[in-house]
């Protein structure tokens, strides 16, 4: 067990989780206290000792599934089934859309599902979903993987493809439709109301999701048998949310990012606020101190301080939101939101080949997503053809707002500086640097690509206090941390 644990910890570290030696030892301690055959308990014991951030949970879970995969038909699995069964009974106890539950344990063990015809499989899948029978779902999952996944030994894959093949053959959308038909047929009187319809659909979707996970688990299990945990872990490893490259994120990764983005921008906002209020105590307030001392016989034992005068930093954010940085733009806008909710004077501008001020969209909105959506719809950023033209956008900025930049202003430029071979007009940045307190540039491209092709970030860099690579949330957070 301890060897297995060491391998597991090594994998977590490879996946980017910061597991310390103490935590490794804690985990080893923790497993002493739980029943060995209880896989769920093992999972939570390891999670509690090794994973200290909810954004790392997915990476943990993936690795756990690989390293502590359920064995076929063994006692471990019986345990897992029994417990799923319990959940099934809970669901069963409630009146609802469930319908009647299949009675009795489904045939268990590896052999149970062998040689089922596609029709039998489909029928059994339908029944298991209708009755929320977890044990039966597992049997169907095994049968479906046997029949449809077409797994070939030794291939260095993570299993997504097998999952896709299996699910496509089962056509879960059609199954959902059939389940809904059944629910409608079973309704009394005038059929389901819209609300009932929706609730039933959500219930079945939850069950289908559960089934999908069962298929995934089954595929993982076979892959582990085939190639061993370590090799498989390497194939299924994914970057942590904070390390996802925003420019080249897959759809899945974007969804993950999206979920962590909101808390992140809130966190940034709080961090900024805190830094700004640092050194909270102002000068001694003599009168208040004396007044206060009256209650202690004139001895000034509780000195009072004046509130410090809040500094008035002024920030100009100028962000490229063209297609080449579309997903980056989304993040920068969230960043802008975070900044503008904390500093009284943030002016924000977005550009493609034209430029528009969007400060107003951020005012008084509680949700960054809303501001971002409105900006995408309403900001006027297209001048000629909707391809980035930094030169034109910057010149326009300079003409319309250049006079408002003063020695109290900090300027943040966000973009890849891929200029479609237009003129750079870098004199604008030069002039801004002369007037402003700071000019920073955040570039979402890897540093190695800077200056290649139509990237002209070098021309602007000469006039910036710093140009920072900013491809991941981690880098973004780092920059903001240093900024405030």
């Amino acid at each position, binding site marked *: 067990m301890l060897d297995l644990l060491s391998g597991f910890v090594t994998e977590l570290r490879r996946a980017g989780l910061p597991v310390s030696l103490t935590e490794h030892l804690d985990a080893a301690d923790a497993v002493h206290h739980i029943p060995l055959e209880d896989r769920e308990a093992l999972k939570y014991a390891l*999670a509690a000792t090794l994973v200290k951030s909810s954004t790392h949970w997915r990476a943990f879970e993936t690795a756990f599934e690989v390293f502590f995969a359920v064995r076929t038909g063994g006692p471990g699995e019986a345990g897992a089934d029994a417990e799923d069964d319990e959940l099934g009974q809970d669901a069963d106890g409630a*009146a609802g859309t469930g319908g009647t539950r299949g009675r009795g344990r489904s045939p268990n063990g590896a052999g149970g599902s062998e040689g089922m015809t596609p029709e039998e499989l489909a029928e059994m899948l339908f029944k298991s979903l209708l009755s929320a029978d977890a044990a039966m779902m597992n049997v169907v999952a095994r049968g479906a993987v046997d029949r449809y996944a077409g797994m070939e030994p030794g291939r260095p894959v993570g299993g997504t493809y097998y999952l896709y093949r299996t699910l496509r053959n089962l056509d879960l959308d059609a199954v959902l439709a059939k389940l809904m038909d059944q629910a409608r047929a079973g309704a009394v009187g005038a059929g389901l109301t819209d*609300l009932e319809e929706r609730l039933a659909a959500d219930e079945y979707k939850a069950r289908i999701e559960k089934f999908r996970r069962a298929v995934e688990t089954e595929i993982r299990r076979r892959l582990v048998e085939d190639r061993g945990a370590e090799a498989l872990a390497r194939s299924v490893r994914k970057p942590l949310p904070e390390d996802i490259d925003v420019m080249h994120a897959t759809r899945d990764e974007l969804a993950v990012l999206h979920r962590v983005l909101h808390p992140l921008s809130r966190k940034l906002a709080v961090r900024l606020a805190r830094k700004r209020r640092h050194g909270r105590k102002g000068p001694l307030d003599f009168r208040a101190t004396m007044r206060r001392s009256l209650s202690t016989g004139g001895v000034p034992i509780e000195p009072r301080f004046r509130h410090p005068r809040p500094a008035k930093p002024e920030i100009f954010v100028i962000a490229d939101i063209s297609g080449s940085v579309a997903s980056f733009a989304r993040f920068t806008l969230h960043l802008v939101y975070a900044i503008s909710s904390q500093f009284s004077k943030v002016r924000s501008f977005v550009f493609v080949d034209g430029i528009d001020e969007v400060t107003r969209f951020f005012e008084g909105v509680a949700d960054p997503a809303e501001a971002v959506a409105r900006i995408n719809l309403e900001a006027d950023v297209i001048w000629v053809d909707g391809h980035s033209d930094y030169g034109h956008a910057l010149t326009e900025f300079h003409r319309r707002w250049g006079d408002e930049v003063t020695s109290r202003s900090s300027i943040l430029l966000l973009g890849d500086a891929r200029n479609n071979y237009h003129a750079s007009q870098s004199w604008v940045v030069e002039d801004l640097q002369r007037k402003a307190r700071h000019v920073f540039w955040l570039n979402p491209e890897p540093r190695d690509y800077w200056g290649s092709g139509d990237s002209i970030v070098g021309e602007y860099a000469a006039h910036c206090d710093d140009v920072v690579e900013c491809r991941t949330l981690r880098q973004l957070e780092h920059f903001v941390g240093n900024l405030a």
Partner: protein
Amino acid sequence: MSTDPGAAGATGAAPGVVGSSGARGARTAASLGLPDAGPPRFASLDAVRQGLGGVGYLADESISGVVYLADRLSKPVLVEGPAGTGKTQLAKSVAELAGARLIRLQCYEGLDESKALYEWNYRKQLLRIQAGGPGEIESGGRDGERRGPTWKELEEDIFSEEFLLARPLLEAIRSTDPVVLLIDEVDRVELETEALLLEILSEYQVSIPELGTVRATRLPMVFLTSNNTRELSEALKRRCLYLHIDYPDLDRERAIVRARVPGITEELADQVARIVRSLRTLELRKAPSVSETLDWARTLVILGTETIDAAGARDTLHILLKYQVDIERAAKELLSVS
């Protein structure tokens, strides 16, 4: 209170606790020079889960598992998760289950040592000094001679127990009866205060220059909650077990409703839980939390609702959702009356 250094079981845990399997692991509190962890509070994983259920807290596998381990490993638990998912309640319920007193330190920005640990009652000290006439202090004065106390005597007097204001951390450490310490919303304090907390949670002792060192006689169970408005330090996280409490799944939420809303029927509780689950799948500014589910369920019971229809849900939706845009979206997607 125990101010005697070494008084508190630093020399080893109770016999029979160390070493045997199923008892505390190799690195027990005692071997780290910490106060005695005492006998385990909970007999088994199941005992925790059922016990919590018995005091009206519906835990899932991970919640009860972590509580169990926190006791066995003598480690604080850091609890994170969305608002209103039962983080604070968990500490309260564990206290109830363990028959312990709950001591709560509510964190806020600007919380410092004097509010978290202890401070001297300056006012009272001052008044004491002003009133410090002869005879007021039993001093070693010679027979018949009336004199004021010497400065040293006075100092000893005003820096004694009587003038000490114990704040939650000190109170938890010196308590002789069992306590559960809840450090609520720890992400709100500044880094220096976080460092102080870490120190306390590593040593379970406080040294007060004027009085000596106060050691815990028994390790308290400690829960820290965070709403994740900032990253806590690595050191603090390493010290703790980590527990993320998310919105409950359907079964658990239904059970929570049944446990917390008197007089609700099984059918209504089920409907409430289902509707809330569906609402949470929508893209809302703020998804309904468990507290809002409970408020809604209570309202429905008061209104005498037997089953919820679209119109009834719409009329009470504002209890569940706090933003007008969310209410409108939910009404449109879920509750259109056709």
